[in-house]
């Protein structure tokens, strides 16, 4: 039904019509009319962050943990530029975000006006799509289109830049949420012939391997269920990427752990030696492949992805299937059942025997001394004490992130929020804010490093303001740990600028924000401290003082093949020096 209203009111009405209940934002001159429209209604809750980057990460956490679109509202100029890191993060990890930015009035655009920047120019490469709305007639369609583009196909961030005069202008609003898009129509259903060929290849495999990623989670809970059905039906081994953890339960015997640079030995070896690889919603990223010319050289590769540009980008595949994971897996399960295949049990038994040998290498083993907490141990204890609760985990970026991925077990999708593609330090705390907003009664923990968390520490204030009892579990080793590890591996142990000098007292810092600070320094204090953290119903900064020199293993040294992993018990000073070739040192 068409109604007269102002542009600002249209923004609010669109949010309501799209079923949006929460917006993360920060006001400023160029969005005041929208904030005024917000003030006049009470069906959308606004969460005031302390920095626009935090708003986008919070919206990402919200989106990832619910499957809904996360909404951000910021002002022009610095409001928009501060959001750029979050937008890029969402683009890399395919997170649906709609970011509304204020803009100077249309007659001032291009005049270097106060708080003006070329928002669509700046955000063009870091969004899935963006719009500058120059006429009130276009606004309702563009707003609804933004939600459609953000959430359909391969999800991603969309920016709508709205000049202030358009926010004041009056026009006719119509709900465009069901109007089909002119050009953007992603394919959802995979080619049936390709699916049949893929199933045939899977049936005849002697050394099969599932390799699944974030696409399964983005496709929704049905996709995770279908993946479980298919993997169980086949009995084949499976590994998941960092982004894919939780789609398949980590407690299953068929799960070989995460793969990639800091994945398990068994997962990477099985990927290298398999004869049929079934890639589901993953993108052969460089953290997974290692040296591309040595990546899984003898396998036939099936690749299911909704984005055609992900196919044959890094690795040439044999059977590409373009479509939504849920649709394709449903069809695969159907075809497999109808085929009721006789599998090569002998070959599979042999394959599992080989995998068990790799597993027995026990690649995540570490020694826990009496006097200092090993970071791996801290995560193992955190997992043991929280796994039976309704728990969501976010992380920052670095060693702690990899340890969390290795040692925290995920049984369900949408429970694990981490910055995979962009690797954004400072992601975890605001993301936890967003997750807690969506799940007020759940236990939300940000597994953090002391360096990362300081990048967006101000969002503690947001958590306190809205009574969001997030738990920031800091593995404090007083180093930019991953930087230090790489300096050890490729720069002769010269720790240039990687020591976290002049750290705050995190317990006092928590108290200063109005939260609760807890510290653990010895292994025997850890369990009680974690239990205390869980029992507190307020935001907590947990300063977990861990071993300062622990490194994250196993590791595919950069530039190496994925079956040439460096294992913790092989590491000594000499092979640390020689682990990375000169060619590898150039890589990141």
């Amino acid at each position, binding site marked *: 039904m068409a109604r007269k209203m102002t542009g600002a009111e249209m923004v609010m009405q669109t949010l309501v019509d799209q079923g949006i209940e929460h917006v993360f934002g920060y006001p400023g001159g160029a969005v005041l009319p929208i904030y005024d429209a917000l003030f006049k209604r009470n069906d959308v809750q606004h969460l005031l962050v302390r920095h626009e980057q935090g708003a986008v990460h919070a919206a990402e956490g919200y989106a990832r943990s619910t499957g809904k679109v996360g909404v951000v509202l910021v002002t022009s100029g610095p409001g928009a530029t501060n959001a750029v890191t979050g937008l890029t993060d969402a683009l890399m990890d395919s997170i649906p975000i709609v970011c509304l930015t204020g803009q100077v009035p249309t007659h001032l655009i291009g005049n270097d006006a106060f708080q003006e920047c070329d928002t669509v120019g700046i955000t063009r490469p870091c969004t899935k799509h963006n719009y500058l709305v120059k006429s009130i007639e276009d606004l309702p369609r563009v707003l609804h289109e933004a939600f459609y583009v953000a959430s359909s196909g391969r999800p991603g961030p969309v920016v709508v830049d709205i000049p202030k005069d358009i926010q004041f202008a009056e026009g006719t609003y119509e709900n465009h949420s069901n109007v089909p898009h002119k050009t953007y129509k992603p394919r959802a259903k995979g080619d049936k012939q390709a699916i049949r060929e893929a199933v045939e290849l899977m049936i005849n495999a002697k050394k099969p391997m599932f390799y699944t990623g974030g696409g399964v989670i983005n496709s929704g809970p049905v996709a995770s269920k279908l993946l479980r059905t298919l993997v169980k039906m086949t009995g084949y081994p499976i590994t998941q990427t960092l982004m894919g953890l939780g789609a398949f339960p980590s407690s299953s015997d068929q799960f070989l752990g995460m793969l990639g640079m800091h994945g398990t030995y068994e997962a990477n070896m099985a990927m290298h030696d398999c004869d049929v690889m079934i890639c589901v919603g993953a993108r052969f990223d460089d953290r997974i492949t290692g040296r591309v*010319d040595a990546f899984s050289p003898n396998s036939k590769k099936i690749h299911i992805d909704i984005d*055609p*540009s992900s196919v044959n*980008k890094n690795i040439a595949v044999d059977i590409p299937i373009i479509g939504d994971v849920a649709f394709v897996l449903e069809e695969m399960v159907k075809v497999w059942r109808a085929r009721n295949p006789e599998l090569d049990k002998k070959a599979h038994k042999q394959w599992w025997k080989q995998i068990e040998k790799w597993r027995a290498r026990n690649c995540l083993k570490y020694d826990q001394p009496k006097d200092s907490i090993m970071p791996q141990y801290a995560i193992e204890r955190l997992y043991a004490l929280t796994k039976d609760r309704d728990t969501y985990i976010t992380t920052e970026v670095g060693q702690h992130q990899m340890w969390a991925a290795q040692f925290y077990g995920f049984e369900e999708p949408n429970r694990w929020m981490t910055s995979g593609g962009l690797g954004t330090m400072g992601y975890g705390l605001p993301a936890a804010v967003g997750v807690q907003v969506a799940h007020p009664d759940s236990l939300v923990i940000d597994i953090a490093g002391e360096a990362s968390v300081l990048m967006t520490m101000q969002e503690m204030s947001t958590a306190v303001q809205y009574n969001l009892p997030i738990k920031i579990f800091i593995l404090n080793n007083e180093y930019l740990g991953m930087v230090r590890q790489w300096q050890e591996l490729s720069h002769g142990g010269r720790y240039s600028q990687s020591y976290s000098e002049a750290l705050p007292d995190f317990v006092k810092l928590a108290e200063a924000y109005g939260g609760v600070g807890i510290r653990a320094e010895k292994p025997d204090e850890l369990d009680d401290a974690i239990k205390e953290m869980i029992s507190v119903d307020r935001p907590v900064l947990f300063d977990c003082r861990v071993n300062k020199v622990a490194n994250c293993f196993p590791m595919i040294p950069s530039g190496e093949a994925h079956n040439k992993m460096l294992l913790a018990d092989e590491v000594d000073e000499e092979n640390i020096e020689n682990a990375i070739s000169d060619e590898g040192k150039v890589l990141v």
Partner: protein
Amino acid sequence: MKTEITEQHTMSVLVDNEPGVLARVIGLFSGRGYNIDSLTVSETEHEKHLSRITIVTTGTPMVLEQIKNQLERLVPVHNVIDLTVKGRSLERELALIKVAGKGEKRVEALRLAEAFRARVIDASTEHFVFELTGRTSKLDQFLALMIPLGLVETSRTGVGAIGRGPEPME
């Protein structure tokens, strides 16, 4: 690293004629490190707000597949045709060429222009401006001949391309 053989392909991109669409296409090429050998753009169907971008690019077969898929992923793009893969496409380019000189050189320039079917669109006793249409290779050849005869300035449109036969681009 093994070096793969690169190929030159011509792609036609049908886009919604909206602000910033060319910037999206160019930004994609610069951001991902693809080559642009030639690029032309103009509105082709005013009522439907459609523009056609013709891009000549060079890359390995895998990169060329990427370019097509990345272009198709852009929201305002209707479709992308790799005319080189389809084969037998028509490609033409137009050049405006200024040649200055006197005497025998001037006469020779005019003679060659006639041989290449270039038109004279401006002239004085000391110069010609030629208009020449043809494949890129023909233009290159003519320009090479003009250098010793007093070539002073060139303006080229870049390649426009279209498939043969009665069907439109699909």
